[in-house]
């Protein structure tokens, strides 16, 4: 239950990446890192200080960075590339597609400042399409952890997984609530709160908001289940189907476009195996804008209140299914 996940502090998920990268470097001497002129933003300085000979600065040249990473991986290294999510995906999609994904290279594409919560820099940098682009690539693992601890654990876990990975995290200071000793299992969702009326499936920063929504829903007498999906691909089908079969309706929540995101993956699963009413908390075919992260999440419909509203909409549709069923 969410009481088992008390907020213990506040830190950015990118800090979890930086600390996880240092630890991965200490644990595995094949881990190397590359950065495209954003060391401070990606929190990679500790790794560079400890392992200067295992770090490659590529400057503002992300296409070259992806190619160099593919070459390092070819020779047996485990490269972690670091830049903003926008420049980790859309800018270099073909380099990732051909030199990394199709060539099945063991490259870890680590992407910070994803989504609206990048904030004041505005829409040029606020990518909301990256999960969709990356999950479409055959063989690509897509991970979007929810807090500092989960990001650190994910950063360590992907070193032990052979194959290309997209690891997405963010800029703002964010509540820490996942236990720091919880093992990170790629492809395994985490049941954070059991309920009977509705299943909320959340990823990334929106897991914290889903926890807030659960409390508000309890005040309304609604019992919501919460699944923390850190791995969007491969998707943990079992945990989702088990929950949906129990609650009969689903709400997905993510800091991404509705098109191509976690919600799409869940909808595809449910359509194939267990048609279920579903509502989306996601950005609806829109670019972002400059602003404070929390304000932007409200304006673009990603607040805890939006999750509550979506739950109520999903419950109404469940009743209709019951009525006509």
């Amino acid at each position, binding site marked *: 239950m969410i009481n088992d996940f008390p907020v213990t502090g506040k830190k950015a998920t990118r800090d979890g990446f930086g600390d996880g990268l240092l630890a991965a470097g200490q644990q595995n001497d094949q881990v190397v890192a590359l950065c495209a002129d954003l060391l401070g933003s990606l929190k990679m300085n500790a790794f560079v200080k400890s392992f200067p000979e295992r770090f490659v600065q590529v400057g503002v040249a992300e296409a070259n960075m992806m190619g160099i990473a593919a070459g390092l991986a070819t020779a047996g290294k485990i490269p972690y590339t670091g830049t903003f999510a926008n420049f980790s995906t859309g800018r270099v999609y073909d380099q990732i597609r051909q030199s990394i994904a199709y*060539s*099945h290279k063991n490259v870890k594409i680590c992407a910070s400042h994803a989504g609206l919560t990048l904030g004041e820099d505005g829409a040029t940098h606020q990518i909301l399409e990256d999960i969709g682009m990356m999950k479409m690539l055959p063989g690509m693992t897509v991970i979007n952890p929810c807090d500092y601890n989960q990001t650190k654990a994910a950063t360590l876990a992907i070193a032990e997984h052979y194959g290309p990975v997209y690891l997405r995290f963010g800029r703002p200071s964010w509540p820490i609530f996942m236990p720091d000793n919880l093992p990170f299992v790629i492809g395994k969702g985490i049941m954070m709160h059991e309920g009977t009326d509705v299943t909320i499936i959340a990823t990334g920063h929106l897991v914290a908001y889903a926890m807030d929504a659960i409390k508000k829903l309890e005040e309304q007498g609604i019992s919501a289940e919460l699944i923390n999906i850190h791995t969007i691909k491969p998707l943990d089908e079992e945990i989702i189907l088990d929950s949906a079969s129990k609650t009969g309706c689903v709400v997905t929540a993510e800091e991404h476009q509705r098109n191509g995101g976690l919600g799409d993956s869940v909808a595809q699963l449910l359509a194939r195996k267990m048609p279920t009413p579903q509502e989306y908390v996601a950005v609806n075919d829109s670019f972002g804008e400059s602003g404070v992260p929390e304000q932007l999440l409200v304006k673009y419909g990603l607040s805890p209140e939006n999750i509550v509203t979506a739950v109520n909409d999903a419950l109404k549709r469940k009743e209709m299914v019951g009525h006509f069923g």
Partner: protein
Amino acid sequence: MANIQELNSIASQVRRDIIRMVHQCQSGHPGGSLGCTDFMVALYFHIMEHKLPFNMEGHGEDMFFLSNGHISPVWYSVLSRSGYFPTSELATFRHINSRLQGHPTTHEGLPGVRVASGSLGQGLSVAIGAALAKRMNGDDNLVYVLTGDGELEEGQVWEAMMSAAHYKLDNIIVAVDWNGQQIDGPTDLVMSLGDLEAKWKAFGWHVLLMNGNNMEEVVSTLEKAKSLTGNKQPIVILMKTDMGYPIDFMVGSHHWHGIAPNDEQRDKALLQLETTLGDY
């Protein structure tokens, strides 16, 4: 000393393979393949230290990356003729269920290929990554790359050029297939490359020039390039070739970049190429 006559004799067979492969599937890229044959034969049969069976990570051996993946026919022929896979497999080029895809890939597990190429401009970056890994590992072997000249129109190549000089990468030898032709016509008309030698020099590279269709010159220039490694500077060979060389009706024209000969043209071409190792 290399036996130039022997290398020329292998090159003749490789060129026969190229014509026959492209003819049998009625697709593929004969022009650049024929033009780069002398370089590829010199590399695999004389210059490069490489080992069988194929090992992806390439520790303790030289590595080769083909950036202009469309000239796959010459690479496939050279790989099979050096023992990476049976020459009979050349007959499967571009057919369904083949390891010999239109453009080279690791996806079907073809020995000798370390990364997919075809979408242009990516190979130099990948080769730089492999060269950096060799440096990190204390491995003294070299990394070779072949790129097209039209391919230099891709911006990523210039990112890569800049970075290799910045890293003082001196275990990499790049060859540019400077045939002056690309799909839509001569490079000077499509997108001028300008003073290519000055451009590479300005980006910090040691530049060598050679006639890529003269085996003796190819071998001596590659040997010179090897002798220049280890000097904190990357090396590029600007290799003047003729697209389609030496087939009289193909040579020097962009027309043969990406079309296959018909039966009559195949026969006419094969008459100009001696069978030396036996057709596949």
